[in-house]
């Protein structure tokens, strides 16, 4: 009887220990996840309404090519045949021939949808963040093309090399939980 009771106690002890370990592990994971959410971590991001498309994002970032890329807010796009972000001003033809394209690395793919609409897709691997397309889209279109810092490329330097030279102070620290300022989702009014 005494042996049985001892053996039972040992089993219970091991079971309790395992339960406790599991609870501790779950608690740690939850705690870590919670701390990730509530902790005030900041990352760098570009305010698209402040950006003046000066071109420095392409040259000043410590990454080569830059961690700044063009992103496209499709719900703002006019899907125009003559896209100010895709074509050079006064392009000879509205065609995909290199001489007509504004992008120096052909990072924008143009696809015909139906008359008179065309879709413009950014190839992030080719984009160098020069903002030429953003400037064209802002000046002549709806401003659907804009620059953003891509966080899986960005090193999140303590002192962002681009922010240091940005002439319009468009690069600012934002909370990690809202790390992108995409036009359409984010508006100037919301910010102010």
């Amino acid at each position, binding site marked *: 009887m005494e042996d049985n009771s001892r053996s039972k106690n040992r089993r219970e002890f091991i079971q309790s220990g395992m339960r406790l370990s599991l609870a501790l592990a779950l608690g740690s994971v939850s705690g870590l996840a919670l701390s990730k959410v509530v902790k005030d971590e900041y990352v760098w991001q570009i305010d698209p309404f402040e950006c003046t498309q000066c071109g420095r994002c392409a040259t000043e970032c410590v990454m080569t090519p830059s961690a700044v890329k063009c992103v496209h807010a499709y719900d703002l796009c006019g899907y*125009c045949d003559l896209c100010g972000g895709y074509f050079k001003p006064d392009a000879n033809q509205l*065609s995909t021939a290199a001489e007509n394209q504004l992008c120096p690395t052909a990072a924008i793919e143009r696809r015909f949808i139906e008359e008179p609409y065309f879709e413009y897709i950014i190839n992030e691997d080719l984009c160098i963040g020069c903002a030429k397309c953003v400037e064209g889209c802002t000046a*002549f279109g709806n401003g659907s093309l804009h620059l953003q810092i891509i966080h899986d490329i960005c090193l999140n330097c303590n002192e962002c090399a681009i922010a240091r030279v940005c002439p319009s102070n468009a690069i600012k620290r934002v909370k990690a939980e809202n790390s992108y300022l995409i036009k359409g989702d984010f508006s100037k009014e919301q910010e102010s």
Partner: protein
Amino acid sequence: MESSQFIRIISVSLVILFLVFLVWWLQTDPTAGLDVSMEGADNRGAGVEAQEVEIGEYFKEFSTGYTELSEIWPRFRGLDFDNISKSPTKLIDDFGSTGPKILWTKDLGEGHSGAAIYKGLVYILDYDEEKRADLLRCYSLIDGKEMWVRGYGLNVKRNHGMSRTIPAITDDYILTMGPMCHVMCLDRETGELIWGLDVAGEYESEVPLWYTGQCPLIDGDQAIIASGGKSLMVAIDCETGEKVWETPNPEGWKMSHSSVIPFTFGGRKMYVYSAIGALAGVAADGDDAGKILWHTPVWNHSVVAPSPVCMPDGKIFMTAGYGAGAMMAQLSENNGQFSVEVLSKYPPRDGLACEQQTPLFWNGHLFGIVPKDGGPNRNQLVCVHPDDPQKMVWTSGTENRFGLGPYFMADGKLFILKDDGTLFIARPSTERYIELDQVKVIEDGHDAWAPFAIANGYLIMRDSKTLVCIDLNV
């Protein structure tokens, strides 16, 4: 091994290595991994098939009674093509504490077409998105009562709006041009169809991007249309619909959004038109009516919306958006022969330039709103002297920026409409920008780009979807 033999072996090896490297270097194409961007990668379609359109097929009358008034704003840029009302009617300086006196509003199809006013009636070419039809709507100016509509079924897809033009009205006729270049000539009083013309079909012309913005012209009893395609310009008898003359177009200049502006200089009346390809002057009368009197291919841009500003001394100012900037040209006449000299041509950041609206010429100066690619002066109202359109006489300043909306003068006041439906009153001056008042007329206004029309103190303005009539009478 002797040292000389060793040196020889090393030398031969180096030469062989060099030759191998040279062959490799010559054979290697560093661009082999790159794709060449060629035409056609977007799989552009073959274009839309022409639609069968029965111009003027639809008519509905709603009312016959209206208050007849005395004044008119019969076409694009008004009676004198200068966008300046000469009416003696006194207008308000400010909107007061009660705000603008809005008489009536109407919902319209998305677009930028403007109104013409004729003795108490307002005419506007709308695109009805439900009926899928171009409809000329006639309203009573005083109360906005809809009198009748005349139009035709047509599929037009939304492309930064659909309607864009202003009808031309005379005592006898109404002339409209729809987004896909369908011209409709009606009896003004009854709205009866007189004739119709499918310009793109008949002249094999290209409908401009985002649909045509050309406002048709009635000169005397002739309809003047810049067709592009097989002919550059055509004159049509309003009563019969027969062609009076056609201007040959050997260079294949295309239709733009710009409108034809009549101009008399050097003893000749001519029509000045900025086509895609050149700026040209076409004889308006005489034995050689329809002949190109002069042209300059220096002004050749893919999108041109503003119309030529013709000044009494023969200067012609042209401007356009999308990076085009502006050009000042000097027209000269010698024994009936015309020549044109380009005085200056510059990008938008270097002087007065406009994207959509045609600048005003008032008191010997030009006024316009600089486009978004105009550098530090972007979106500012600026004033220049025609002798040097690159030197700003004044700008409205960074705190007073506008958009692509219209501006015009009436009762010695300058009215400016911002894209969001805010209406400004300013005092015209060649010294500085003097704002008198401003008010938001259209809540949540968007793309308020259509030119103004005014008669008897009643201002007609719109944003992309709402037409508004404001009583500006003192």
